[in-house]
């Protein structure tokens, strides 16, 4: 009889544990769902976590619209720091582009090309390290816009390597290579597509 009682108590404890576990699981699922819905709603906080440099780039452009170049450089410094810390290629591309826009605003683009190029190189290194075909092709676009054809060729070599045997990826690289080799495309006319 005692053995039966003991077995029933043990079973009851096991049932309690299962019920508690199920409740915990339901709460965890509810939290995940709330977070996912916030992220898909694209609220500012979710967006900023995804691209911490983006708000600063926005400030660069606002400052440029007001011809406030000091504020633009300050905001650019913040964007650079955020992009550097994110360890992502996208940030370095955007920082490079923003730097060129500051140069354009000052009507002094040529002097600003060198640092933009450094940012694009950092983006290329990161993209290759992360095996991101998109990143390498975005870097290629950026170098093409600078008229840096030798580096574009190098980017395409890396892109071909990353595409491997994936026919879709190979087609994408081939399409970009054709665009870059088009003689009608001159430096500064290429634009990064959204």
């Amino acid at each position, binding site marked *: 009889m005692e053995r039966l009682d003991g077995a029933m108590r043990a079973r009851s404890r096991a049932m309690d544990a299962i019920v508690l576990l199920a409740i915990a699981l339901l709460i965890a699922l509810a939290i995940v769902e709330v977070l996912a819905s916030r992220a898909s709603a694209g609220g500012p906080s979710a967006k900023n976590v995804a691209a911490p440099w983006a708000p600063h780039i926005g400030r660069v452009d606002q400052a440029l619209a007001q011809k406030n*170049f*000091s504020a633009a*450089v*300050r905001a*650019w*410094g913040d964007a*650079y*720091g955020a992009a550097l810390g994110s360890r992502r290629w996208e940030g370095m591309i955007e920082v490079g582009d923003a*730097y060129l826009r*500051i140069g354009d605003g*000052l009507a*002094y683009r040529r*002097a*600003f090309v*060198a*640092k933009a190029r*450094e940012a694009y*190189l950092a983006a*290329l*290194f990161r993209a*290759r390290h992360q095996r991101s075909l998109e990143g390498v092709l975005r870097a290629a676009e950026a170098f093409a816009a600078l008229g*840096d054809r*030798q*580096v574009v060729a*190098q980017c395409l070599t*890396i892109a071909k390597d990353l595409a491997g045997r994936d026919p879709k990826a190979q087609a994408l690289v081939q399409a970009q290579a054709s665009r870059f080799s088009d003689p009608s495309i001159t430096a500064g006319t290429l634009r990064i597509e959204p």
Partner: protein
Amino acid sequence: MNIEEIEMISESNAPWMSHLELMDRAVASRDPDGAIRAWRDAYAAAVGDGWQGLVEVASACVRIGEIPGFRKACEAKARQTYWTALFRARQERSVEGLYQVAAAFETLGARAMAEECLRIAESFTAEGSDSEAAG
């Protein structure tokens, strides 16, 4: 050519560029002595020029810092060279140069120095606006 050699590609024919190309090759082959020697030659070629060469040479110095054990010393040297570029830009009253140096200081995390550059640039811009208004 491998990716590490991309930094050596340059279409500029400024007198310091050939030295910087040598420097980048030395950095790629992890040769600190060769890199520092080439960097000094680049500095010597740029120092007689305007702020722009000094900014390029200072940025290049940061790249030597990719060699393990050299980062701190190279950032300090880059900072000194940006400082020289700041004086040169101020002397030339180049607002563009001051903005460039400010951004360069920002990349080193030297916000106070960047602010100093921006303050000088703003004062030049204000003076320019005043003289335009007076004219």
